[in-house]
Each structure stands twice: as structure tokens, then as C-alpha cells.
């Protein structure tokens, strides 16, 4: 895979005004029909595992209510919990830093590394550092950054961003990963066995772990009461990094706070089951201070979160614990792929978070949904994703952010739907037209929806006629 063909597959498609064109990105993805079907199936498989995990816990719905209530409460006092966390963490020998935005975060991290003369950094999965563009910043300053989560290492070796927040390389086939490893790690040509490829990555990354000057992780939860952070992985890469390196930096968004350690009983029971269907992740590490001789830092990052907290309709998106269940269940995500969103976080949660950063650029994302509500139904912390998507659509339309044709069409539709006589007439015309038009042309009139679909036989009469005939006295 050459760099340019990779880039052309992963870069967001922008329209003439620099806004993300999700439909065009989805078209690029679905051009490969087999891959689309396979991607859809792989994610549905994870969704089914999630269902079995949830069904194994009789008190599941109570847990969701509790998790949502704990998060709502914490967000309603977030400044107090942040200060409490800072106080307790500092007392434990953890150095706490504050960053208003991504650039400030990157400067803080670079400063910590530079002060220690650290040049080799191992990093475990953190969507926050993706959001901040940390890797590129550090590399520009001569620091070698190695992402150690297997999926993240795969996409890093390919110069791609993650396409999913839990399974970063879900868009790739094992043959493609084998080709990348052959080129970058020297595995035999044609090797595509997941066990063998994982073993090769294990050997390659062991060396990086043992040679690292510093380790970074994201944070799943930060406990205000105790001043500690919780980092969760299945691979053990976060722990291997922090157990060896003399410097440890944990970066977290300010919304990751929870009040009490015991709250973790609720969140951990939900998180692994929602993400992968597992009863528990393998390593749920609680870090309350540096190892002897180690320096430990926590960077608290705002980067738009306080603004989102002040939005009455959208603050609930900050409850998110990044399980990705809403991505896995979303019929649009599954069939359009993570790159079509042009946003660090794709899928339903990305589509309600990212417009908050730049509503013009990401105006298309709230429309990348069928509003079926499946996302809200699976969300372990009860983020009202479908409501927020709908609300963003209203805001985008009000701001004139929709494409002109869509605007005209929706206004015309609104007029027709509001006028019963006009609606009846339109129905009669449509039924007549569908009978006489060649199917190819009729499908075109159905817009993107018509692509790859056959239109049903148009009914003879309207629903209104049917009710009159079959349910006398009801019309």
C-alpha cells in the first residue's frame, strides 16, 4: 500500500467550503462492496457479544441508570471535583497540569519529556492524544512515539488514524496487516495469520517497552475522592509501559472524573460488556502515585469540553465512557466506515461531540444517521444520542449549514406535508409517475436512497382510500 493510496482512503472528503462531506466519504468506502459487507458483519458480531454480555446481568438497566446519574451529578459539580482530584493527587506525589486546548497539552507533554531528556516514548491508547495531534507535534521535536496498542500500532505503521475508538484497525483485513508488517517489521511475505502477526508485534514492541524513556496512557476514570486514575486494557500495554519507564504521563479530558472509588463498581461492570461483551477487561489498573524513583504527571485537558458542558442540549455527551457500543450498533457507521466522518471520534457520539468544535465544518455529521435510536438504546451511560443528533440537525438548518438543494427540498417537503390537499395530490402524481417511469429513472429520483435498491411496486390507491374502503367511519 503506497502512502498516497492510504491517504486517499483515510483523509476526510471536504466540499468546496471545506466542510466534511460524509456522504462522499461513505461512497468511497462502499465502493468496495465486499469490504463494506465484511465491516458491517464484523461490527455486528461485536454488537451481538455486547447483547449477550448485557443480558447476563439482571440488574443491567439499574446499572445504566446509576451510571448516568453519577455522571450527571459529577458534571453538575465538575469544578469542585476537579479541584478535589488535584488536591488528593498532588498529595500523593502526582504532578497535575492543566491545558486549555490541544496545543497547550502538547506543549506540556513536550516540556515534561524535554526536562528529562526523554527521546523514546511508548504510548497506550488515548483518543485524547489523537484529538490533540500529539504524535506529530512530538515527532517534529525529534521524539520517537510508539503507539503500543496492537490496533493503534498497525494504523501508526500505515500512517493512518484509528477508524474506531476501541478497535482502531477494524477497517483492515489481515492480509493488509500482513503486508504492512512485512514491509515495516520484516515478517515473511504473505504472512496473514493473526496469531503469528500478533507474536511478531509482541517481539517488536517488547524492545520498545524495554527501551522507553517515558510512557503515556489515556485515562478511563479519575477518582476525585482518592486522587488516582484508572487505566483499562486487554493487552497489558498501558501497564507494561508504566511499570518500566522512569516517567509516566497520563492525559485525560476533564469529563473523566467520578466522585468515589466505589462508583467504579458500576462503570466497570458496564464498560467491558458494552465494548466487547467481556465480563471484565483483563487489566483494570488503579494508579495512585508514581513507582519509587518514577515521576508521574496527569494532564487535565479542556479543549472544548467546558463549552459543551454549558450547552443545555448537549452536555449529556460528556457522560460518554468511550465504549464504542454506539458505533458498533449504528447502521450508518457500520456501512460507511470511520474515516467517512472526518472526525477523531466517528459514529453517533462523534457526530454529537464534533459539531460542538466547528459546526460549519461538521454540519454533515448529525445527518449521518437514520435516527433509529439504536445508539441511545445501547449506551451504558444513557447519552440521549438520537435526541442530540436531531437537535444538531435543527441548529445546522437554522444556521443555513445544509447544502442548498437539501434546504430547498426540505422546505418544499415541509410545505407539502403541511397541506392535506397538496399531499393527496402529490401522492396521486407519484403513484402515477412510478407506474410509467422506467425503473432506472425512478430510482434516481429517490436520491442516494435509490442506489443499489429496487423500488417496490407502487400501490393502486392511497392509504386514505384504503382506510375509507376498509375502516368505514374512521377517516
Amino acid at each position, binding site marked *: 500500500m503506497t502512502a498516497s493510496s492510504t491517504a486517499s482512503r483515510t483523509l476526510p472528503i471536504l466540499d468546496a467550503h471545506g466542510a466534511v462531506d460524509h456522504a462522499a466519504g461513505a461512497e468511497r468506502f462502499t465502493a468496495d462492496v465486499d469490504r463494506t459487507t465484511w465491516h458491517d458483519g464484523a461490527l455486528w458480531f461485536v454488537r451481538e457479544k455486547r447483547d449477550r454480555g448485557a443480558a447476563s446481568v439482571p440488574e443491567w438497566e439499574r446499572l445504566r441508570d446509576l451510571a448516568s446519574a453519577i455522571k450527571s451529578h459529577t458534571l453538575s459539580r465538575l469544578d469542585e471535583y476537579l479541584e478535589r482530584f488535584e488536591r488528593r493527587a498532588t498529595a500523593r506525589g502526582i504532578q497535575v497540569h492543566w491545558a486549555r486546548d490541544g496545543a497547550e497539552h502538547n506543549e506540556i507533554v513536550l516540556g515534561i519529556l524535554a526536562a528529562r531528556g526523554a527521546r523514546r516514548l511508548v504510548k497506550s491508547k488515548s483518543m485524547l492524544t489523537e484529538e490533540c495531534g500529539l504524535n506529530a507535534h512530538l515527532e517534529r521535536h525529534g521524539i520517537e512515539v510508539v503507539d503500543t496498542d496492537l490496533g493503534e500500532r498497525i494504523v501508526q505503521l500505515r500512517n493512518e488514524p484509528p477508524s474506531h475508538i476501541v478497535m482502531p484497525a477494524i477497517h483492515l483485513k489481515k492480509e493488509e496487516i500482513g503486508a504492512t508488517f512485512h514491509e515495516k517489521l520484516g515478517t515473511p511475505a504473505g504472512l496473514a495469520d493473526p496469531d503469528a502477526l500478533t507474536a511478531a508485534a509482541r517481539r517488536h514492541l517488547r524492545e520498545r517497552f524495554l527501551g522507553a524513556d517515558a510512557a503515556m496512557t489515556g485515562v478511563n476514570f479519575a477518582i476525585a475522592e482518592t486522587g488516582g486514575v484508572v487505566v483499562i486494557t486487554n*493487552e497489558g500495554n498501558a501497564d507494561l509501559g508504566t511499570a518500566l519507564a522512569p516517567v509516566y504521563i497520563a492525559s485525560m479530558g476533564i469529563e473523566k472524573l467520578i466522585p468515589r472509588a*466505589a462508583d467504579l463498581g*458500576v462503570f466497570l461492570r458496564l464498560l*467491558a460488556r458494552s465494548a466487547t461483551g467481556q465480563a471484565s477487561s483483563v487489566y483494570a489498573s488503579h494508579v495512585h502515585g508514581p513507582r519509587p524513583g518514577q515521576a508521574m504527571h496527569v494532564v487535565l485537558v*479542556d479543549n472544548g469540553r467546558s463549552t459543551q458542558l454549558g450547552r443545555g442540549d448537549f452536555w449529556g455527551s460528556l457522560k460518554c465512557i468511550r465504549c464504542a457500543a454506539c458505533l458498533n450498533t449504528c447502521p450508518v457507521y457500520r456501512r460507511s466506515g470511520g474515516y467517512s466522518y472526518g472526525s477523531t471520534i466517528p459514529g453517533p457520539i462523534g457526530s454529537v461531540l464534533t459539531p460542538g468544535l466547528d459546526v460549519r465544518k461538521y454540519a454533515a455529521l448529525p445527518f449521518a444517521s437514520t435516527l433509529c435510536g439504536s445508539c441511545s438504546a445501547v449506551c451504558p451511560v444513557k447519552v440521549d444520542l438520537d435526541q442530540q443528533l436531531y437537535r444538531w440537525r435543527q441548529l445546522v438548518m437554522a444556521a443555513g449549514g445544509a447544502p442548498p438543494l437539501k434546504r430547498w427540498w426540505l422546505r418544499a417537503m415541509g410545505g407539502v406535508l403541511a397541506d392535506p390537499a397538496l399531499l393527496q395530490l402529490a401522492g396521486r402524481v407519484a403513484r402515477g409517475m412510478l407506474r410509467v417511469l422506467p425503473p432506472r429513472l425512478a430510482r434516481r429520483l429517490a436520491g442516494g436512497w435509490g442506489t443499489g435498491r429496487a423500488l417496490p411496486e407502487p400501490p393502486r390507491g392511497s392509504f386514505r382510500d384504503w382506510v375509507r374502503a376498509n375502516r368505514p367511519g374512521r377517516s
Partner: protein
Amino acid sequence: MSAREEILRAVRAARVATFGNAAPALPSLPTVGEWPGGADGAQATRSALVDRFMVSAQGAAARVVRTTRAGVAQLAASVADSLRVDGDGARDPVVLSMVDAVHGNMAVPDDPHELATLDLFVCEGEIGVAESSAIWLPTSRLGQRAALLLATEVIVVLESAAIVADLHAAYAAVDVGRESFGLFLAGPSKTADIEQSLVIGAHGAKGLTVALIDG
């Protein structure tokens, strides 16, 4: 204004704008035993908890061996033996043990990098969770926590009397902030990042054996 002041001020203004005086209360958590942990009933018997733990461990790809304190040494010897390298470059397995019953051939090093060649690590868990087979391991029971990740095989000794129904009971029983590090461990290291195929032994231990002691 410092970043800290500016962020705190923005957060305060935002939460007042969103919640006003109607801030949602912090809910109280379920009391231990409120949820029976499945179909076992509120007073799950010890043997029901152990059974549940064994099923969960299987789901997490961990091996459970029911044994006695005295039996742990033998178990460790057989696991170590499976890691012996014969022929070219023959060497004895490197064993680090944090439990009295097992004698290792390596002491806890000051520098964790010295654990790079560790074959077997043996330690003792504090609390086991029946619903997930997660085991609480505070740093005092690990020595260097890198041992848990660098060893090819790990044995965790656990008293069956230390098994509780669920995570709520576990968090009630442990003080997670007592030491600078502690973790819930459930099974060996794993990944499914290549086409959703489950592979055991991503970065950490390739095998986890729980030595369950019926005291």
C-alpha cells in the same frame, strides 16, 4: 489568568448555566448483597460463588486449579517445567515468587528491566470476583508490577474464601487508594485487533493459572 484558573472558571460558569440550582444528586450505591450476582440468591453459598468464579475464569481464558497451600509448589514446578528450554541455549526457567510456598530463583529487582527474561511469576490475590474472575492485586503483593506483564506465565494464588459475588462487593472490601498501585486482573493478556480474531498473549502473560485454595 493561568490555564487552571481559566478552565475552572469556564467549567463553573458552564455548569451553572446548564444545571442552575437543580444539580442532580449523587446516587447511593447498591449495598453488598443487594444484587445477588445472578441466580444464586442473595445468600450465595461459598460453593456457588466458587462455581461462578470458575465459569467466569473459563470465559476469560484463565485456568483454575483447585489445590492446597502445599500443592501450589508442585503446580508452580509443573508450569515452570513447561517453560524449560532444552537443547541449544538450554537454560532453567527464571521464576520469581511472592508467595512463601514457592521458591523462585530470582529476587525482586530494584530495576524492573531486569525482569525481561522472567518465565514464571507467582503472586497472591487479595479478593476474587465471581461474576468476572477478576482478582485484586495491590502492589505490595506484586513487588515490581512489571513481573506480571513480562513473565510468560503467571500463577495467582487465591483463597476461595476471598471470592465475593460482584465488583460492588469487591470495592467495598478493598481500599484502592491504600497503595500507589493495584489492579483487577482477569485472565491472560489478549487482543482481537486483527480481524476480531482472539489472540492470547498480546503484550503480557500468555497464560494465567489461578491456584484456588480451599482453606
